[in-house]
Each structure stands twice: as C-alpha cells, then as structure tokens.
C-alpha cells in the first residue's frame, strides 16, 4: 500500500471511528471485551482442546494405523504362512525344483511335478482365497509354474521380489503387475531345498482387495478417516476413500525418506489429495516396504475439538448476544438520554429554543439532563438578553443623532446607522464594501482615510474634526474613531462616531463674539464696573476700574473688594444689603479724594439675581465733571434766569412806567396843548383855552407834569441800566485795549461813590502784571467796566470785613489786588486775573458765588446780583468766561477771559 492509500485508509478509519455512535462504540467495547474474553477463553480452550484433540486424533489414527498395520501384517503374515504352507507338502519342493532347475533327466517328471506343484498352488489358492495366483520362479526369474498359465513364461528377473525373494520373504506391491490392472501384492518366499539352497521363489499374487478391505475398514476412522498404503515412491496402493488423486500420487516422494527414517509415525497435517485439511499418521511399514497412512479430515479428527470449538463459539455467540443485549440495555440508559440530549441540543441549535430534554436514567444522567435543561434555560435567557441587547444596540445606533459607521481596514464600509443613511442619502446595503471616495469629494475622502489610518497605526481611540459638505452647506463634525478588535486582539475594523457640531461651532463663534462684545462693552464703559460674589470677592474688574484704581485685573480678581479699594469699605454694608434684599442700592455724589483732588462719585450697586447666582455689580461713575457742569448749569440757569428775571422785571416795571409817562404826556398835551380837540372841549365847557393855560401855569401844573415825566424817564433809565444788560440787539461792541480799560476802571473805582464811602480804595495796593502786546478784545467796554468794578467791590468788602473782624492790629492785612493780563493765543482769548489777599472763600461759598441773589452779606447790604450780573455779562453778552478760585485764608482769584478781536472787526474804542 502506498502512502496515499494508507492515508485513505487511516482517513476512512478515522471517519469510521467518528461516525460510529457512542452506543455503538460502547456496545462494541462491551462486546469486544466479552468477545475478547470469550475469544481468548475459546482460543485457549480450543487451542488446548485442539492440541489435545489433535493429539488424540493422532493417537487414534495411530492406533488405527497400528491396527491396520497389524491387520496388514497379519494378512501378509498369513500370506507368508500360506506360502509356507504351500510348501508344506514334502515333496512339493522336489517337484518345484524339478521345475525350477530343470534337469534333462527329469524332463519327464516335469509335467508331473508341474501338475503336482500346480495342484499344490491351486490348493492353496482355493483354500486360502488370499491369492489370485501363485507361481514359481526359478533362479533366473522365470516363471516356471503359475496358477495362471499365462504367467508362465514370464520373466521377472528384474523385480525386487525376485531378488529379495531369493533370500527371504518379501512383499512387494506392484502396479500393473503383468497385465493386471491395479495393484497387486506380490509375496515371495524363497523355496529352500533341503540343502537350504534356494531352488526357486514361490510368489503369490494377491489382489489388493483384501488389503483394500483391511485398509478400507473405517473402523475408528469416523466419517472422513481412511487408511491407505503407499509404495515407497508415494504411489497409492490401496484405494482412497474419496477420490483418486492425481497421478495416483498422494504425497511427495521426498517425504518418504522422512517417514522411513522416523522411528515413530510421522504426523502430518496437510491437504493430502483432498481439498480439505487432513491429519495423517504416516507409518513406514518396513516389513512391507510400504507407507501406511491413516488420515482423517482434520475437521473430523478434531471433531471434538471442533465440537468444543463450536460449543465455545456457541457460548461465545451467546455471550456476545448477551453482551450486546446487556450492552444495549445498559447503554440505553446512557446513550438514549445522551441521544435525547443531543437531539434536543440539535433542536435548540436549529432554533427551537424552547425544547426541554426529558431524560431517564441513572442519577448522573438525570443530573446531566437537569443540568442540560438548566443550561438551555439559561441559554434561552441569555439569548433573550442578547437579542434584547442587540436590539437595544441597534435601536441606539439607529436612533442616535450621531452618525455612526464601521469600516474595514481598507476603509470600506461595513455598516452605517440610520442617521448616516438619512443625512447622506445612502442605504446601508448600497454603501457596503465601498469606500469614501465614491460618496464624498476627493479631498474629504482622503482626509477620512488618513484619519482612519492614524487610528489603525496608533491602535487607540482618536478624535478628529472633519468638515463635510452637505446639501445645505459645510458641516463640521467631531469624529471619535476607535479600532475594533477580535478576541485575539487584532484590529479588524474601525468604528467612528461623528457628532455634528456645526451648530455648536456657530454657537461657540456667536458666544465668543458675544463674549468679546460684552467684554468690549464692559471695558469701554467709562464707569468702573466691579463684579463681586456674595462673599465680597472680586469677580469682574473692567478697564476703567483698572485705570482709576491703578490695580490690574489679574491682581484684583478674587480679592476682597475692600482690600483693593479701601475707599469702598464704607460701601460694603450697602453691597451686602443689596445682595440680601435683592434691591438696587445707590449712593450719589460721594465726595472722594483721588490724587489730592476732590472727585465726586455715583455708586450704584446692582444685585445679581438671575440664575440664582448671588453677587452684585458695583458701578462707580466719576461724576465730578458732571457735578461741576450741573452746578455750572444750575448756576447758568440761575444766571440765565437773571436775564429772564431782568427782562420780566423790566417789562413789569416799564408797563406801569409807560402808563404814567404816556398818560402824563397826554395830560400835558391836553392841558397845555393847542389841539382842536382841546378847543372843542373848552368850548363845550364854556371856557377859554387861554384861561385854562393860564391857570395851569399859575398852579405850576406843566412843571409838575414835567416832573412826572422826568421821574418816569429816570425810573426807566434805572430799569434800563440795571436790567438792560439782558437786552441784546443794541449792544455796542468795539475792539478795546484791555490795559487801558483796566486802568480806567481803577481810576473810576477810586472815585466811585460806593467805594469811597465804605472802603478807602486808595489804601489798596495794586500790583500790575501786564503782558506786552496784549491783544485787543471785542467787547462792550462799559459792561466790562461794570464787571471789573463789581469784582473790585466784592474783594474790597471782603478784605474790609476781614480786617474789621481781626481785633489785633498786627493781624490786619493790607488789602492788595494783583492784576494779571495775559494773551491766550490758542484760545484766541485775553485773560484778566484779579487776585486779592482777602479771606478767601470756602468751597461751599465759592461754587455759589455767581448765583443770583446769593449773598454772604447780611440782609440789606446787597442784593447779591452783582457777580451774577457780571457772570451773565461776561459769558452771555461778551462770549467769554468768568471763574473764581479761592483758598480760605489766602485770597481769591477771579479769572475773566474775553475773546480777542478779529482782524477787521469792530472799531476801536
């Protein structure tokens, strides 16, 4: 067998082994065991019995053979005896010798001897019936006498019986002796003369029949046994029982020597001439020079053995059957339940998951069955769970708003979820196995694949931002990609979860812009915006706060407010109050010192109440300017009201004055005039106009009327002069030299009635500080004078009062006015400063000094209109500015600024 055939065989065997069921195998094993046992017993038994049987068979055969041998020998002995007996008659030998050794002398007797011998032979023949013929041979081998006449004249000088027969009794089996068919037994004895010389040989031919009979006797040979004789060449002498062998040869001539040489019989097992195996006992009958074979078919010979064997086999078969049955029975309890389990398992595998195995059997089997059922129950549950879980997962995958996909290592799609399908309008089945470049622009697809590769290389979860064009524009996604691994840890796919953050990005962008915008707003605010939490720690510090406090945002954040801005410490209570009560608190016009200057602040505290976050925003506005402006405006209002006041007053006064004056004029006309109406009226009354005129004159009426008119005029003038500054329109402007104007005013003040009366202006020291090349000023010179005078008056009064109040002479100051004139080229103004060394003014007073009707003097000493009018004149009429600075204890400084004259302006004054 070559290798492939071997292989096939082993394969076949293997298949066989695997295909056979356990039961079969078990049964087989049981059977095998039983069989082996039985078989070995049988074999041993049979073997023993076989041997024994064989032994016995051989013995039997040998016995038979011996018997046969004896028989044959006896017969042959009989033959010998007969032969010898034949020779009994006394003179027979003589007769024979005549025949065998013919002498001429005895020729006559030949016939008699012949007859006598023949008769003797015949007698033996008939008597014994053992011979078919007898003849006598001479020493030459010629047959001289025979019972069969034809035999005479024959020669057997070559034959063994002749040769041997000369000496002793010999038996020879011969085939085809002479013409006879078959086998003849030729026995010969030497015929001895009385001289013990051999005269001839007496030969007897016997048919084999007798021997055949002997040999053919089946006694002790059973049904198949036989005995036969063979000649030394192995040729069959006596017939066989069953058939004639080929060429009459039973055994190989080569074996004869073996038989001959052995002392005992040779036991042989062969096939003999038959087709069946025989056992034979082969003897060499040396006396007869034949081989005696007693043989018997093995089967019969060993029949007992075979019987035993059969019995054994029967027993074995029974045992086998028993074993099988037992096996079947026993295994039923094992394999049936197992088969049942297997069947159930198969059913379950096929999908009938609710099948329950019912098994009977031993406790182990029952246990197995129960366990199996439990297991399948668990399995059912697990499958249920798994199905549910799988469904959940699928639902999850398909209902999430994220786009989920799985690609293999070559970036070919394996799975996409519903969202993916919907957004990109591709079905899961269509995309399967295809790559990105089929659905997305090349650059996009390349990016995807590069990202996929990175994930594979890094073997970890990575996040990417991917931009994808969709129907409504570009969308930005956050893609989380991670490798999927099998149970041996190898990557087999990539899973990606992409979330659309376009909106989020927009929102972020919006938020960022908003935040920036808000930040910008907060930081552009001119107010200090400070955010604090409920513990008073700073959470917000805008640019203005930084600027004003000089503390950076970074340093301020998280610090307690009252540490960073100590000046707000007093506000903290209000702050906490605001947070607690959730109401806005404000503090206006807090005076505060910053860098040595007085500032005013408005502080507003807004509690933050949205989103439940506690805290507050403090807004601090520097309102110093505003306050100033407000005050100025109030002042201006007040100042302006002066104009209105003046105008109103003037109007109110002028009307009654008009009434007085105009009426008196009419009166004058009517009383002293020459109107025709007068004449008419006089006529009506019956009086002459002249008379009336004379009376009027006499009583001084015209003079009185004039007085009335003059007084009214004067009153009107006073009104005009006092309140007339309010009138615009007929202002008379001219370009003036301020230096001259000031000097004139100084002269005037020296002679001024008021000044003269109360203050000795001449006592005043005047310091002059005039700039050269002073510009001309466009103004109403009278009005400017009015202003200057007013200022001087105020100063003088104040100093006087101060000196009056100081009792100690040494403390009294010498009143001193410092006059400074300067050009302000950029502003195109001329500045006039009038400083005194008076008591100065407190701030409270200073800021109200231009207020109409504001007076520090006691009631009756002044209306307080002076400076307000001065302010009005300078600012409203002349378009300049008027300011006052003062330091209590040092002095006061008035600053007048007037617009410089334009070229080609008004005429010079």
């Amino acid at each position: 067998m070559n290798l492939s055939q071997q292989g096939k065989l082993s394969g076949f065997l293997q298949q066989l082994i695997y295909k056979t069921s356990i039961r079969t195998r078990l049964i087989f094993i049981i059977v095998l065991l039983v069989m082996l046992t039985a078989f070995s017993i049988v074999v041993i038994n049979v073997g023993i019995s076989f041997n024994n049987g064989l032994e016995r068979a051989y013995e039997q055969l040998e016995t038979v053979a011996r018997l046969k041998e004896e028989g044959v020998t006896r017969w042959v002995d009989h033959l010998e005896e007969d032969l010898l007996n034949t020779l009994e008659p006394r003179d027979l030998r003589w007769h024979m010798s005549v025949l065998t050794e013919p002498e001429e002398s005895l020729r006559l007797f030949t016939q008699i001897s012949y007859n006598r011998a023949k008769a003797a032979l015949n007698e033996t023949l008939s008597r014994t019936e053992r011979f078919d013929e007898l003849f006598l041979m001479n020493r030459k081998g010629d047959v001289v006498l025979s019972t069969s006449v034809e035999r005479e004249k024959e020669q057997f000088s070559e034959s063994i019986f002749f040769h041997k027969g000369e000496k002793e009794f010999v038996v020879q089996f011969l085939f085809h002796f002479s013409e006879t068919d078959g086998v003849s037994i030729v026995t010969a004895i030497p015929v001895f003369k009385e001289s013990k010389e051999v005269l001839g040989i007496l030969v007897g031919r016997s048919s084999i029949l007798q021997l055949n009979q002997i040999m053919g006797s089946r006694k002790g040979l059973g049904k198949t046994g036989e005995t036969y004789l063979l000649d030394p060449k192995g040729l069959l002498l006596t017939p066989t029982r069953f058939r004639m062998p080929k060429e009459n040869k039973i055994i190989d001539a080569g074996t004869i020597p073996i038989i001959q040489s052995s002392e005992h019989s040779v036991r042989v097992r062969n096939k003999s001439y038959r087709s069946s195996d025989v056992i034979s006992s082969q003897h060499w009958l040396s006396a007869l020079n034949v081989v005696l074979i007693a043989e018997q078919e093995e089967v019969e010979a060993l029949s007992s053995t075979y019987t035993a064997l059969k019995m054994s086999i029967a027993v074995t078969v029974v045992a086998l059957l028993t074993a099988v049955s037992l096996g079947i029975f026993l295994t039923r309890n094992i394999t049936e339940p197992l088969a049942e389990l297997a069947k159930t398992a198969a059913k379950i595998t096929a999908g009938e998951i609710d099948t329950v195995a019912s098994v009977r059997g031993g406790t182990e089997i029952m246990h197995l069955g129960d366990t199996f059922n439990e297991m399948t129950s668990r399995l059912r549950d697990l499958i249920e769970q798994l199905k549910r879980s799988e469904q959940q997962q699928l639902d999850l995958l398909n209902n999430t708003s994220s786009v989920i996909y799985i690609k293999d290592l070559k970036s070919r799609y394996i799975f996409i979820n519903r969202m993916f399908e919907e957004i990109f309008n591709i079905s899961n089945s269509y995309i399967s196995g295809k790559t990105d470049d089929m659905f997305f622009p090349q650059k996009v697809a390349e990016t995807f694949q590069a990202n996929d590769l990175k994930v594979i290389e890094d073997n970890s979860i990575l996040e990417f931002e991917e931009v994808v064009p969709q129907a409504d524009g570009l969308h930005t996604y956050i893609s989380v990609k991670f490798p999927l691994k099998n149970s041996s840890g190898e990557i087999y796919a990539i899973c990606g979860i992409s979330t659309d953050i376009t909106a989020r990005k927009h929102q972020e962008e919006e938020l960022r812009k908003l935040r920036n915008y808000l930040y910008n707003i907060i930081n552009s605010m001119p107010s200090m915006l400070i955010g604090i939490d409920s513990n008073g720690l700073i959470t917000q510090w805008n640019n203005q706060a930084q600027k004003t406090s000089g503390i950076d945002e970074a340093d301020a954040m998280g610090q307690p407010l009252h540490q960073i801005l100590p000046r707000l410490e007093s506000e903290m209570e209000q702050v906490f109050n605001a947070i607690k009560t959730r109401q806005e608190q404000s503090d206006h016009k807090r005076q505060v010192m910053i860098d040595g200057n007085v500032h005013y602040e408005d502080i507003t505290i807004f509690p933050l109440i949205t989103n439940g976050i506690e805290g507050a925003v403090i807004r601090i506005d520097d309102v110093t300017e505003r306050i100033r402006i407000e005050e100025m405006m109030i002042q201006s209002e007040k100042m302006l009201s002066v104009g209105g006041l003046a105008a109103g007053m003037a109007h109110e006064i002028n009307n009654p004055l008009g009434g007085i004056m105009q009426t008196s004029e009419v009166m004058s006309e009517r009383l002293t005039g020459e109107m025709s109406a007068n004449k008419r009226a006089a006529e009506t009354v019956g009086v002459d106009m002249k008379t009336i005129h004379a009376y009027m004159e006499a009583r001084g009426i015209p003079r009185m009327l004039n007085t009335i008119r003059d007084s009214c005029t004067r009153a009107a003038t006073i009104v005009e002069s006092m309140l007339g500054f309010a009138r615009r329109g007929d202002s008379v402007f001219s370009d003036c030299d301020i230096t001259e104007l000031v000097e004139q005013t100084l002269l005037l003040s020296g002679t001024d009635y008021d000044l003269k009366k109360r203050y000795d202006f001449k006592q005043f020291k005047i310091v002059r500080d005039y700039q050269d090349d002073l510009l001309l000023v466009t103004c109403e010179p009278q009005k400017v004078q009015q202003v200057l005078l007013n200022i001087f008056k105020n100063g003088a009064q104040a100093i006087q009062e101060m000196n009056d109040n100081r009792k100690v002479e040494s403390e009294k100051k010498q009143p001193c006015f410092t006059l400074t004139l300067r050009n302000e080229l950029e502003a195109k103004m001329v500045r006039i400063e009038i400083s005194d060394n008076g008591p100065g003014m407190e701030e409270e007073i200073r800021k109200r000094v231009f207020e109409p009707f504001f007076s520090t003097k006691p009631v009756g000493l002044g209306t307080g209109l002076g400076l307000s009018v001065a302010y009005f004149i300078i600012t409203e009429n002349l378009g300049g500015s008027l300011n006052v600075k003062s330091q209590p204890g040092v002095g006061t400084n008035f600053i007048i600024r007037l617009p410089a004259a334009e070229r080609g302006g008004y005429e010079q004054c």
Partner: protein
Amino acid sequence: MNNADLSVLIIDDDAAIRQSFGDYFEDQDFKVLSAESGEEALEILMTESPDAAIVDVRMMGISGVDFIQKAYLQIPDCVFLICTGSPEYRLPADLFQLNQVSSRVFQKPVNNLSLVHKEILRMLTEMRT
C-alpha cells in the same frame, strides 16, 4: 393825509397803556380801536379794517407776533408797530421782512408819543406810494 380818516387799533394787556395811547390818538383825531388781547383784536378785525395797529408783544393768550402773522394778510393796508416793555426784544426776521411791519421797535415807556404817530404816518405814506 387827514388824520380824521385814519383808524388805529391798540392792542395791549395793560389798561393804562391802552388808555394813554387811546387818549393821545384821540387827540390826534384818529379813530381808536383797542383790544386787550390778540384774540380780541382778531375779532375786531372781522368787522374793522384799521390803518395802523400798535401791538404789545407780551400778552396773555397769543403773543403780538402771532397776532401780526395772523392779521397782516387780512388787513394788507394796515401798518404794524410793535411796542414792548421787554428791553431785550428783537424783531423776528419774518416780521422784519414784512413791509407792513415797522422795523422800529418802541420801548415802553414811550416818552414821546408823537414819535409813534410820526412812524405810523411815515409807514403809511411809504406803503401807499
């Protein structure tokens, strides 16, 4: 021209002023019409057509300026003179442009009523030529 043909409308909320003007122009043989307010004056204008009007600026109700603006078209031949007690008063530009309105503003108290008379005559002469 003859004064006796002329009529004058005096509009002022002050009775004394009205009276004194009235008396004077009466002496000058004017027909005198007087009104306390602009509204009253407008009512008068419905029936009368004066040749001149002396108008006070500051009155209750509509101001003199408003009155003139309402009235001048109604009485195109009438001259308007403003007489005011407010010293700061300046003739507004739109009235200034009207040649019916005198550019001279009289300041109360008027110490020479004949000036008013003369102005009226001057304006009337100017207008009618």
